[in-house]
Structure formats: C-alpha cells, structure tokens
C-alpha cells in the first residue's frame, strides 16, 4: 500500500566527489529518481555536482546546483514545497543534512515527510552511544566504546581498556578522523584532530586481526527482510572496508557462520526499524563464532552500490520504492522480470573489489592504510575462481600492474614490516614474499589475512613458476595454458613468464599468445549475471567473461548492428564521474539512433555499469586483450573510444591495428595528437605557437635548454621514482632537488622540459567536430593563472574576462587543428593566453573533464552531438552560443586533504582534487559564492589569517584585503604580509610563524584556539616538499577544519564575492529556470 499523498519528492545528492563519498551516490540517486519517475512523482534534486548523470536532463524534474547544506535545502523546500524527502541516497552529506533539518524543525514546518528509514532510526545508528544502547536491548554485541569530549578523558578511557585502542569520530563519513593508537601520545594527536570535526569522539578496544564481514539488508514496512548480499574483507579488521580488498559472497564462512551473522543482521535491522536499505558490518573472530557489530549504515553506501553490481539486485531502486510504502512482494526482480523482488540473489561467480589509491600524487602523505579511508575509487572484477577475479581486478586498478605476478620488479626493504604495516601495495608485497619463499603460514602470521585467500594466491605463484619452466610458447602444454587463463593470467603475463627477456615489445608477445590460444581453442566464454544462478530463465544483458566455463550464455547475431562504447574504468584523480556522464550519454545516443548499445566498464560506482542503461553490459576489463575478446564475440559495427577518458583513448592505435572500426577521429590522428613530437611538428607546420619544450636525457642538456628559455620551467619525467610526476622549477636548486628526488634522467627515461609562462591565463576549448569542421564549441577560462592543473582550477564558462581578439584567435587555431587532425567527435584544447598571444599547451581528441559542465551550462549536449558525428549522421550546428547566455557557470574543485594525513594542501601542476561542483549564477560573483560553499568553504565570521606569498601575489590580494577590512573582519597576517598591509593602510595584527614558537601571537595557537575562521596561505613556490612554516599552517587549517585558500586569484574572487553579497542575496533557481 503506497502513500498516495506523495506527489513531489526532494532528493538530496552528495555533492562533489570526495574520498569517502564518490560516484556510488550518483548511481544510487539516479536509481531512486528512476523509481520515483516510474510512480509519476515529480522530483526535485539538490546536487551541485554538475558532472553527474543524476543532474542530467530527464532524471529529475527540477535540478538545483546548490550546496547540500541545511541553509540551501530549506530555501529549496520553501520554494518547491515537496511532500516527501529522500535522505538515504546522497551519502553521509545528505543524511547529516536531513538529520539537522529534522532537528531544527524545518521538515515539520513545511510538512515534508521523510520517506524510508525514519530520522529517529538514523540517529540511533549514527550516535554511537544510542547505537550501543539500542543493540544492548536485543543482546547483540557491539564494540564497547566510550564517548569522550576531551583529550584527557580519552587517555583515561584508553588506559582502562588497554592499548591498542581505536578512535572514531561520530557523524563522520568514511571513517574520517579515525585511527588506531598504541600509546598516549598517538592518542592525544588523533583525538585532538577528531574533536575538530565532531563534538564527540569514541575510544574503544581494538579487535585487530578479526575478520570483517558485511551484510546488505533490505526491509519493507511490513517487516519483510532480506539480505541481498554478504561480503568479506580480504584484509582483516583494522583496515577500513573502503580500503580493503573485498569479496562477495564471503569465502571463508561456513554455512553456520554465514547464517548466524545473517540472522543477526535481520534482527538488528528489524529492531532499529530501517525501511529501505542498510548495511551491517561485523568483526568476526577467526577462531570461534564470536562477533561484534562494528556499525550499521542506515542508508545506501559504497558497499550497497557494490552489492547491487555484484548481485544484479537494484538496491537503490528497490529502497526508493520501499520508501513510498511498497512491500517487497509487490515489486518484481528487475533482472528476471518474472520473479519477486523478495528474494536473495544466488551468485554463481565470485566478485572481488579492489580500491584504487592515488597516494603518489601527494607530498608528505603516508602510504600506510588503516581505519581511515584514502582510496579515491574502486574496481569490481568478476570471475569463476578467486584467482581469475583478483588478477582481473589488479589489472583494472590501472597502476601498471599485469595481475598478481609478472609485474615490474619493485624494491621492498623489509618484507616482514611491509606485510605487517599495510600500504596501498600490500597485495604485491604478498606476491614478492611468496616468490621469496615465505610460506602461507608465515604470511598469515604477519598479516592475519585468512589462509584461504593466501592459498589461492599461492596457486597463482605456482602456476607462474610452472610457466617460467618453459622457454617457448609452442612448447607450452595446452592444459597449463588453460589453467593459467582460468587463474586469470593475461596474455601478457603468459608471454612474460615464458619468453622472459626475449619478449620484445609486450604488444607483439600479446598477439603471439592470442594467436596460439585461439588456435588451441583456449578462449573465454560469456556468462550472464542473472541473480538466481540459472535457476530461472532471465533475459539479462549483464555479462562478464571467464575461462571457467564451456558455454556462452549469449547467442550472438553477428549482424554488425551494435556499437561498443569503452568506459572510463576506476575513478582516480583526473578521471571520474564526468567520463561516466560522457559514456552514459554516448550510450543513450547510440541507442536512440537505432543501434544496439554495448558498454564495457568495471567500475561499480557508475551509472554506465547499470545494466538498464545499455543493451549489453560487459562488466569486464578495458585491456586490449579483453576488448578484442569482446569484439570477436560481438562483431559490432564499431567502437567509440573518445568518451571514456584516457584509458580507451590509449587503446585506439592497437585496436585499430587489429582491424577494429574506431568510430570518429581515426586512430592515426589520435596518435598524432598524443605523440608529443608529432603534435609539436604539426603545430609548427600550421604556424601555431606553443611553449618551447624539449625531451632531454641528461642534466647537462637540461641546463643548456634552460639557458635558452630561462626559468621557470615545467619538468615532466617519463619515469617517476616517488612523489608527483611533474613540477615547476624556478631555479637551479629546485631543479636539482626535484630531479634527484623524483626523477631518474637517462637515455631510457627522458625528461620533458618546457618553458613555463608566468601570470598567463589558461583557457579551455571544448568542442565537437565533424570531418574536421567544428560543429559546437565552448571556451572557458581558469580563474587561477596557469600553473594550477586544469583539473584543480576554478573554471568559468562562458569566459567573462577574455579579449574578443583572444577568443577569435582561439577559435581560429582550434579550427586549424580540427581540420589538420580531421577530427570527428569530441576534443579539447588547452591554451595559454598572455596579452593577446595564445599558445597551445595540450590537445586531446576525446571528451574532456569539462564536457558535462559546458554541456549543462550551455544546455547543449556535446556528447550527443559528438556521438551523432561519430555515427556519421548529419549534425546541425546549434543555433545558440555562449554569448547568448545571461548567466555564468563556475566549476570549482573539491579537495580531500582532510583524509590524507600529512599531505600538503597546495595546488600545483599535478592534479590533486578528487571531485568538482558546477554552479550557475547571475554573474561571476554569485556563481563563485555558490560553488565555493558547495565545495565546503564557509564565509568567515570574524577573522582571517593572511599570508600571501610573493610581492606580486601580495599586491594581487590587496583589493581583497581592503574589502575584508571594510567589512569589519579582523585581519591577522604573517610578518611580510602584515608589513605590506600596514604600508597600504590596512590594519592587521602580526602573527608569528611556527618556527618562532616563543613569539606571540603564534599562528598555530590562534588556529587551535579557533580565533581564526579562514586562512589564506599562498605558498611562495610550489616545489618545496620539506616541512615549512607555510606547510604547518596549511596543514593545521585542514586538520582543524578551517577553510583554507592557497591561490591568490581564487582567494580574491571568493573574498570579493562574499564581501559584495550575502547568503540571502543568492537566488534559489533551478537549472531549468536559467
């Protein structure tokens, strides 16, 4: 029986992607919107994340690109007057916001009903003390912890419990501020930090070494309950589940274990009164059936997205329907279509999830992983043996690994330590240990990873040893080859293990193995994910490939009427939800034009891997080998490689060589743009300017080149030892330090050095062309000067402060390039502009990160146009252009430095942001204000600390400083800045650097005592990695959750915005109303 009074529903999104809250909520929100639409309910969505699929045409009726905060949500509620609100689909952000709205009486005031799990139940799962009490009522064991609100209390509790203890912050997403402590000192540091985020911190006894097991539970308002999936962490307790390799279903639990925990999960969920979906996490003793409930998440989560993809059960869709009052028995299984949604999926495959980290991008960050999340994305691999799934997964994470074995050698100084203190590389440390003869027992003792997993990894090692016993591919017994493939070995791994140093280029060897396999009939089969393990017929299009099978589930028509779209793989810094949006839109256009749309992707957080978005979904690898396997089976009309970011783009040449019909721009032209030398030569030919650069192989050559062009220079090593991949060097010292630390210059590892132009504007050209002629384009400008990676920069579209002349030149140059490369499809060119001179710095013949942003601001879908162009259809030039817009869009970046302990929160030439928002405003200022608030900045109340870098930057910030002063802000400033301000008639209070601890007032002291509510700290140069004064201030601001700005131009823009308008001046307008 559903609630017929619900006619309009508000859904809260999760905002920008950040560590702990990523693409999974685009997926779950999209599903919920779909469920509402099916019921004829009007939907209103608040989500500033403009790159998401859910914020696209056709998903929600009204979309607000506004911050998901109580202030803005209340404004939208008062305007839209929804009947109901969905809180469970936007992660912790939406949940916290909903709880606040309930507490402050806003929901009651406007008569908005919370659909699904009631707020009371949410609070009982979020507040540890209430939670423990609640579960005590039904004799369910929890990890007993004590809530403290001071550091001293924490130490007292820890000494009673005995170390090690774990510290958690209440109301925090993804374990923020959590960690293990072995002594008073560690505890003191951690608790202090945690208390800055959360009024309450919990101290509890650690259960390190126990298994970690999760259940995804669904309950309807009739008290019907199912567990859709259980999952087991490969890594034992102590590593956050988001940081752990996870398998589904559990592999080391007996039937009794499995159902004991399952029954408990149901008991808990009933007692708490969840309506919808929820996740129960356990610590489980490996030596008995003792357990503790770790936590219950009363909302859709990363785990639930994974469980949906792992089982085919659309958890978010069903949860949304249950929120409307449906019973599970009233809903259908959307895979089989004929069976009930009240059932528990039976898997006939195994799923392995592996996190993707990008820790190498950050300065000073620890590589160790633990109870707090650091990973930025994840992959899901499907196989019919554990070996097959994990090897697939290790390739999918895209860190240059070929699987568990046959990887490039890497140094580990102390294997025992590396096993005990896990880092992002631990799985490869296990491989190394096994190769060096460590037994399963010894590795188990050091890692506490269940021996079953280790035995299976050992089996991979054993097979690789056997392969290594052969020297030619022809001598390989077919049974061994088949076994290797069944254990997930790629053709490359087989080639490397057999041919060793004689394999030439890996690409040729791959082809040799491929040919041999096909001759011997060792080919993969396609299996369906049907939720019922073949018990009932299902017309499911959700597929994967395996070597553990003898029969295809799919009958191929081979009518060349399908088009394969290659997806974007794991979310990582530099490639995330924006490419999912591009992929989804390409699929939709392909389908609309009468072709069968086929997707290949393996990221469980995406909408493109939702099986109802395309005609066929291959949840599998985006490697040359696997794409060719699928191409052979599918025999499509062609493949689209330009909407999934760099991974598919990189495959273009090799696929083309094997006869794959690459739709759109030819592979040769893609290569001409990708290859630095070819591209540069082309620009010279066309008379297009570019910063001077050279590829160099010795320090002397580098110095000679710098003598020609002068400092600063941008240095890009081709082989990175550690730390960030590129850097700007301003003098000899910096150059040498960087080359010594990060790069290894040699004939094999050349370094690209280019002239770095200071104080230049950076401009993006996003465009679509057909047969070399531009059809649609969007020119945006960066707020920051060049030197901040385009993925970190704040981008304004339409460009507001460019000379008409500059715009005209950009258009002209772009047209020349489009013609020269005969572009058909999407492309992006980045320019530097100084005065009216423009230089090309990069060109990608694929969709760029900003495609969804410009498409949505302009309200012209660039991917739709690009896809039509690639399909060879006539593409009309859109009638309107950027000059017609009477509003402005700002795309701002979201950083996750709070998660990355120790990382220096500065912006540089390498990208560090994890997500972005895009907000629309009537002018730049309004758009800036909205977007900065949406990425977590706050308008300061009383005081600001300024420390504004070089004289030039100090001058650039002078106007902003005046404004702060005129608005009554107290300005604190470090010595040079203070002097400069005073000289210019702005009163400022001098504060002392951390290196002058005896002088007062001390910057760090002021931060700790919360006397400062915004920090502007402009680093003098961007190459220093040592601990410096500036670093300490920046880091303290991050750790104490005080807004921090590190770029003078952005800081000025933000300050000007909040000084010239107030929150109340911000218009509450939906996207559709602009």
């Amino acid at each position, binding site marked *: 029986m559903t609630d017929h009074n619900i006619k309009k529903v508000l859904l809260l999104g999760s905002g920008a992607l950040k560590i702990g809250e990523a693409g999974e909520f685009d997926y779950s929100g999209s599903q919920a919107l779909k469920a509402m639409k099916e019921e004829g309910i009007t939907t209103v969505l608040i989500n500033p994340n403009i790159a998401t699929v859910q914020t696209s045409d056709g998903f929600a009726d009204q979309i607000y690109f506004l911050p998901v905060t109580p202030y803005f949500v209340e404004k939208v509620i008062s305007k839209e007057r929804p009947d109901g609100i969905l809180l469970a689909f936007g992660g912790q952000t939406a949940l916290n916001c909903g709880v606040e709205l309930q507490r402050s009486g806003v929901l009651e005031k406007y008569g908005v009903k919370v659909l699904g799990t009631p707020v009371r139940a949410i609070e009982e799962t979020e507040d540890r003390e209430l939670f423990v009490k609640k579960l005590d009522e039904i004799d369910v064991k929890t990890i007993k912890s004590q809530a403290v609100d001071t550091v001293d209390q924490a130490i007292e509790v820890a000494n009673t419990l005995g170390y090690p203890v774990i510290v958690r912050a209440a109301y925090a997403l993804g374990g923020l501020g959590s960690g293990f402590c072995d002594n008073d000192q560690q505890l003191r540091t951690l608790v202090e930090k945690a208390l800055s985020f959360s009024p309450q911190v919990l101290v509890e006894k650690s259960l390190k070494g126990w298994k970690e097991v999760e259940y995804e539970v669904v309950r309807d308002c009739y008290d019907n309950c199912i567990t859709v999936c259980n999952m087991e962490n490969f890594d034992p307790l102590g590593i956050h589940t988001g940081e752990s390799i996870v398998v589904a*279903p559990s592999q080391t639990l*007996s039937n009794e274990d499995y159902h004991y925990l*399952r029954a408990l999960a149901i008991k808990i969920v009933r007692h708490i009164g969840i309506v919808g979906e929820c996740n129960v996490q356990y610590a489980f003793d490996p030596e008995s059936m003792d357990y503790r409930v770790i936590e219950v998440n009363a909302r859709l989560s990363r785990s639930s997205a994974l469980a949906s993809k792992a089982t085919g059960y659309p958890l978010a869709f069903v949860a949304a329907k249950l929120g409307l009052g449906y019973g599970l028995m009233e809903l259908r299984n959307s895979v089989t279509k004929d*069976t009930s949604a*009240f059932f*528990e999926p039976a898997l006939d495959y195994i799923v392995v999830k592996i996190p993707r980290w990008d820790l190498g991008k950050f300065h000073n960050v620890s590589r160790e992983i633990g109870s707090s999340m650091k990973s930025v994305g994840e992959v899901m691999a499907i196989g019919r043996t554990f070996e097959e799934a994990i090897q697939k997964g290790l390739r999918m994470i895209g860190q240059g690994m070929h699987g568990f074995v046959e990887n490039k050698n890497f140094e580990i100084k102390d294997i025992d330590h590396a096993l005990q203190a896990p880092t992002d590389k631990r799985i490869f440390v296990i491989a190394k240990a096994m190769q060096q003869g460590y037994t399963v027992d010894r590795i188990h003792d050091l890692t506490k990873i*269940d021996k079953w997993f280790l035995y299976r990894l050992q089996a991979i090692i054993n097979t690789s040893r056997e392969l290594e016993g052969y020297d030619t591919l022809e001598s390989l017994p077919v049974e061994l080859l088949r076994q290797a493939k069944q254990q997930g070995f790629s053709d490359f791994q087989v080639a490397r293990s057999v041919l060793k140093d004689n394999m030439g280029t890996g690409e040729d060897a791959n082809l040799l193995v491929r040919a041999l396999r096909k001759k011997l009939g060792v080919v993969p089969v396609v299996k369906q994910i049907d939720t*019922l*393990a073949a018990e009932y017929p299902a017309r499911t299009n959700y597929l994967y490939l395996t070597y553990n099978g003898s*029969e295809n589930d799919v009958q191929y028509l081979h009518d060349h009427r399908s088009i394969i779209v290659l997806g974007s793989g794991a979310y990582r810094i530099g490639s995330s939800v924006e490419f999912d949006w591009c992929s989804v839109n390409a699929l939709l256009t392909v389908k609309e034009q009468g072709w069968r749309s086929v997707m290949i992707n393996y990221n469980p957080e995406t909408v493109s891997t939702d099986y109802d978005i395309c005609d066929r979904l291959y949840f599998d690898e985006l490697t040359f080998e696997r794409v060719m396997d699928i191409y052979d089976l599918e025999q499509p009309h062609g493949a689209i490689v330009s909407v999934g970011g760099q991974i598919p783009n990189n495959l273009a040449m090799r696929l083309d060589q094997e006869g794959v019909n690459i739709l759109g721009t030819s592979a040769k032209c893609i290569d001409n743009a990708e290859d630095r030398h070819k591209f540069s030569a082309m620009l010279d030919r066309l008379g297009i300017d570019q910063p001077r650069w050279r590829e160099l192989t010795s320090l002397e050559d580098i110095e000679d080149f710098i003598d020609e062009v002068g400092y600063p220079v941008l240095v890009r090593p081709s082989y990175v030892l550690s730390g960030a991949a590129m850097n700007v060097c301003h003098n000899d010292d910096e150059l040498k330090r960087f080359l010594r630390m990060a790069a290894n210059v040699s004939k094999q590892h050349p370094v690209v050095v280019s002239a770095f132009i200071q104080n230049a504007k950076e401009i993006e050209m996003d465009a679509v062309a057909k047969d070399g002629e531009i059809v649609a384009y969007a020119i945006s400008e960066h707020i920051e000067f060049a030197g901040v990676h385009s993925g970190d920069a704040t981008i304004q579209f339409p460009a507001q402060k460019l000379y008409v002349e500059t715009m005209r030149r950009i258009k002209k140059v772009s047209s020349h390039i489009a013609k020269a490369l005969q572009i058909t499809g999407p492309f992006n060119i980045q320019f530097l502009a100084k005065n009216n001179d423009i230089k090309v710095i990069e060109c990608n013949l694929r969709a760029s990160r900003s495609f969804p942003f410009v498409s949505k601001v302009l309200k012209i879908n660039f991917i739709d146009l690009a896809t039509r162009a690639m399909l060879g259809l006539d593409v009309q030039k859109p009638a309107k252009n950027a000059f017609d817009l009477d509003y402005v869009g700002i795309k701002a970046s979201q950083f996750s430095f709070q998660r990355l302990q120790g990382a220096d929160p500065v912006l540089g030439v390498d990208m560090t942001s994890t997500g972005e928002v895009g907000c629309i405003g009537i002018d730049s200022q309004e758009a800036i204000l909205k977007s900065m608030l949406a990425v977590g900045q706050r308008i300061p109340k009383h005081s600001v600390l300024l420390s504004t870098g070089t004289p030039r930057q100090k001058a650039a910030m002078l106007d902003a400083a005046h404004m702060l002063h005129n608005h009554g802000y107290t300005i604190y400033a470090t010595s040079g800045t203070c002097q400069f301000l005073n000289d210019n008639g702005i009163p400022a209070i001098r504060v002392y650097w951390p290196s002058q601890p005896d002088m007062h007032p001390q910057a760090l002291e002021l931060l700790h005592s919360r006397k400062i509510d915004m920090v502007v700290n402009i680093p003098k140069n961007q190459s220093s990695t040592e601990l410096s004064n500036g670093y300490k201030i920046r880091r303290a601001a991050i750790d104490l959750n005080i807004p921090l700005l590190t770029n003078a131009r952005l800081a000025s823009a933000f300050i000007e915005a909040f000084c010239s308008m107030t929150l109340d001046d911000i218009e509450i307008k939906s996207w559709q109303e602009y």
Partner: protein
Amino acid sequence: MRKSVKAVLLLEDGTEFHGYSFGSDKSTAGEVVFNTAMTGYPESLTDPSYEGQILVTTFPLLGNYGVPPQQSQGDLSKYYEGDRIHCRAIIAQDYSWEHSHWLATRSLSDWLKEQGVAGIYGIDTRALAKHLREKGSMLGKVIIGDDKAEDIDWYDPNKENLVAKTSCTAVEEYGQGDKTVVLVDCGVKHNIVRCLSKRGVKVVRVPWDYDFTTIPYDGLFISNGPGNPDMAQATVDNLRKAMEIGKPICGICMGNQLLAKAAGATTYKLKYGHRSHNQPVQRVGTNTCFVTSQNHGFAVDGDTLPADWEPLFINMNDGTNEGIRHKSKPFFSAQFHPEASSGPKDTEFLFDEFIAML
C-alpha cells in the same frame, strides 16, 4: 600442474561434461539435481533427502572451509544432517584443495574418499544447471578415470523406496520434557530433532512405517525425506488415523507431501525441483514473506486440496504450494525447511507455533 584423474558426467540424454575427480575413484550413477546455495556442502551432502542424487553446485567454488569433525552429541551428529553422506556425487566448477576454517578437521576431498563418494570439478555447472532447467532433472553417470560408462548402470532413485532406505529402523528417544512429540522418520535431518528437543519436549523418533497411533503422544511431526512421496503409503495410512485422533500434526518437506496425500490431495514431480537457500514464500492472506531453504523435487498440487484444507504458504517465484493447513484442526506443514541447515533460519518460528499447539 596437479595430476588429477579425469572424470565425466554423462547425462541420460547423451550430453557429456568433462572434468577432474577430487573424490572417491568409484564411478557411480544417480539423479542429477542442482542447488544454487552458496554455502552448506557438509549439511547438504549428509541430508538424507539427497539420497541417490548427484548434487551439482552452481556456486563455482567448493571446499573452501573444509569439513567439520564427525562428532556426536547424544545420538545425533553435531555438525552433520545424517550419519553419512547421502549424495552419490558432488559436482562443482572449482575445488579448493586447501581449506581454512577453525572447525575443519579435514578436506572435503578426504571426506568424500573416505565415504566412497565421487566428486568432480572443472565442470561448467552454470551450463549444466541451465541444461537441467530446460530439459528437467535427469539421470546421470559419473565415470571416473578409465572406467567404462557401459559398466555402470543407470540408477533412478525415484523408483526405489528411499524413505525406507533412509529411515531409522528402531524407535529412539531424545531430550526431556512434559510433552511428547512423535517424529516420523522418513529420512530425517538431524536438525529437525535438534530444533524439537531444544524446545523442551521429549522426541520419540519412529521408523517411517511405524504405527505411532499405538503410542501416547501430544504432537506428531512428519519429517523430510528423499524421493517420491508415493513410496511412503504406509506413513500416509498412519497419518489418516492420526488425523482422526486430532492431536497437533506438523510436517516438513516430504512431511508436507504426505500430510497433503493423507488429506486427499495429490503430488507431482517438478521439472527440476527447488534446491536453494533463497526461495521466497508468502504466507497466504498476509503480506508476510520469508526466505527459505528448500530441497525438493516433488510438490503438492494445491488445487487438489479438499475443502477443509487450505494453502498456508505459496512460492513467490513460481506459485507452487509451499505448505498447507487444516481450516479448523491443528494440522499444518511446510514444503520448505524451517530447520534450515543449510540455509536461512527465518522460519524456525514454525517449530514454536507447533510446540504452542501441544
């Protein structure tokens, strides 16, 4: 590479599936059925309801957590559902040669060898399950190594009285209590005995054809069991007498079918049966649903129930009967397994409902 002995599963329609042996080297034959459960192989293998059958597991990995010890508690096995393995063979995609579990005392392979039961891995059990789903359950031969298929006879368990084969032969008693429950053993799973006796009643377990109307009891419980319910006419006859007596009666699985037959309804063979941990059933006339563990090849024809009986549960996937009850008398039964083992325990409350009637 492991030097495993080759093994073949030959189906009666001539289809062959090739794999490798990890169990006994004795070739065998039986009825091939598939189960989609993801855990519970020690329980399933010892479940008497699988007597004479070749069990195909669609979950591809088998043997991960080894096998718990053969340990008795009273006259019951502590971890198993019967005294021995009742399946004739077990077939999976991938066998885990190494196992890991604190309770395990040996590997599945060793146990199968000890019990003389065949095991095959390396078979696409999804393809096999689809084949059985489309063609229906069929007979099969498991040929190990160089054995010849023609030397092994087909074996159809449904033509044999398997209830008689798996039932106890003498009366046995379990537990203490004021009330006495007679448990008719048609091939009872040990967990049914455990579920009853732990509720504080005395359980008197009697052979399938024992005339229990001659002994005093407060309630009657008809167990699960293997094969065709038509073979257990003796039990049906005794049940009719018990229905005259009017004391509470409860049945599980085969017990559901026998109670239905005693009431006057008929049973039939399903195309490929229900064998899994995820069968959804709905209590008729309510919005209450349960996930149940099932293992049956025959079902009650709900349309043939006499007027004073009604369906109690129905299967939400295919609408088949999942339980019956008398409209006025304390008689009810379930086609699924409230005792689980293996599988979900969500319906164990049915034992409480039964005990409350006594």
